[in-house]
């Protein structure tokens, strides 16, 4: 007997993600999925953003890592709600993990939820987590060629953040090529040049995010 199915393999993830999305919408929470390589500065960026945004916006964080709660501890020290997901080897977060994490967050008291995905430039791009916006983080030391080499990570994102720009003079990172590739792949993405260690550029990104959070609150 042949059974024709034609179903998406990730259908189960899509269903859970849809539920998560509805839950987040009901609570008027703006959700961001931050993706990037290990060491690009995802957690450092989060720390800077929390500093800037915490006085004005109620934030929470979901931390994805293979092992350890080192990142969650860094975030927790800034006194905002954080849930750590340890995937124990899985290279991405999925809908089910987010559902588990949402169950552990005070949803009535959150305006901005930031999900820090697993450090990886391939797999996280394939899994919709129910976010309103994706942000891709690239650091200068990784090289500008990563945009063209890992296009799924830089397509359909709300913003592309280039970190460690203070190191530009010491590397052969070609800023022109970076902008050329981004314009080709994702002409609508906002681009922010920042340095987490120097603190530069973070204000512009924080202001832009504040604006986005307010937008969704008005819609609600």
């Amino acid at each position, binding site marked *: 007997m042949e*059974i024709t199915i*034609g179903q998406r*393999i990730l259908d189960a993830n899509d269903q859970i993600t849809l539920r998560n999305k509805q839950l987040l919408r009901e609570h008027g929470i703006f959700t961001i999925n931050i993706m990037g390589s290990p060491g690009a500065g995802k957690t450092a960026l989060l720390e800077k953003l929390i500093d800037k945004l915490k006085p004005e916006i109620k934030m929470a964080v979901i931390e994805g890592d293979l092992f350890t709660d080192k990142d969650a501890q860094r975030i927790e020290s800034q006194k905002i709600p954080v849930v750590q997901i340890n995937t124990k080897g899985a290279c991405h977060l999925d809908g089910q993990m987010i559902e588990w994490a949402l169950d552990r967050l005070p949803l009535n008291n959150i305006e901005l939820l930031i999900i820090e995905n697993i450090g990886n430039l391939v797999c996280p791009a394939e899994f919709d987590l129910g976010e309103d916006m994706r942000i891709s983080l690239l650091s200068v030391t990784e090289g500008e060629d990563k945009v063209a080499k890992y296009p799924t990570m830089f397509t359909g994102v709300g913003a592309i953040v280039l970190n460690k720009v203070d190191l530009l003079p010491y590397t052969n990172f070609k800023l022109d090529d970076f902008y050329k590739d981004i314009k080709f792949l994702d002409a609508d993405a906002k681009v922010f040049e920042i340095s987490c260690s120097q603190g530069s550029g973070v204000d512009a990104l924080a202001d832009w995010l504040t604006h986005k959070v307010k937008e969704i609150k008005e819609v609600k």
Partner: protein
Amino acid sequence: MHEVSLMQNVFELIDDYSREYKLSKVTKVVLRIGEMSCVSHESLEFAFSAISKTTISEQAEFIIERVPGRSQCIVCSHEFESSLLTAICPLCNKPAMCVAGRELHLQSIEGTEEEN
């Protein structure tokens, strides 16, 4: 890298359908995988043979149908084969978006029914 977890999802679907159609044995599993889906066929095959062990799919033939990438021009709607997420339309030189090639589908299964 996520081929094993993808395959776990495939087996959940196979379980559901073989229960629904009362299959005692699955003899063939066909996936449709887009060429731009960042999934390695070799890893899928490995994951299939590993996960199918001691299940009713252990002896099943495992087939992957490749779906080539296609893009469509955002201006003139011309469709053409392309392995790029954002390509350039060969007719009008404007950007074209990927419309096929990212599929991850369980296409069909074959099996024998339980004897009553």
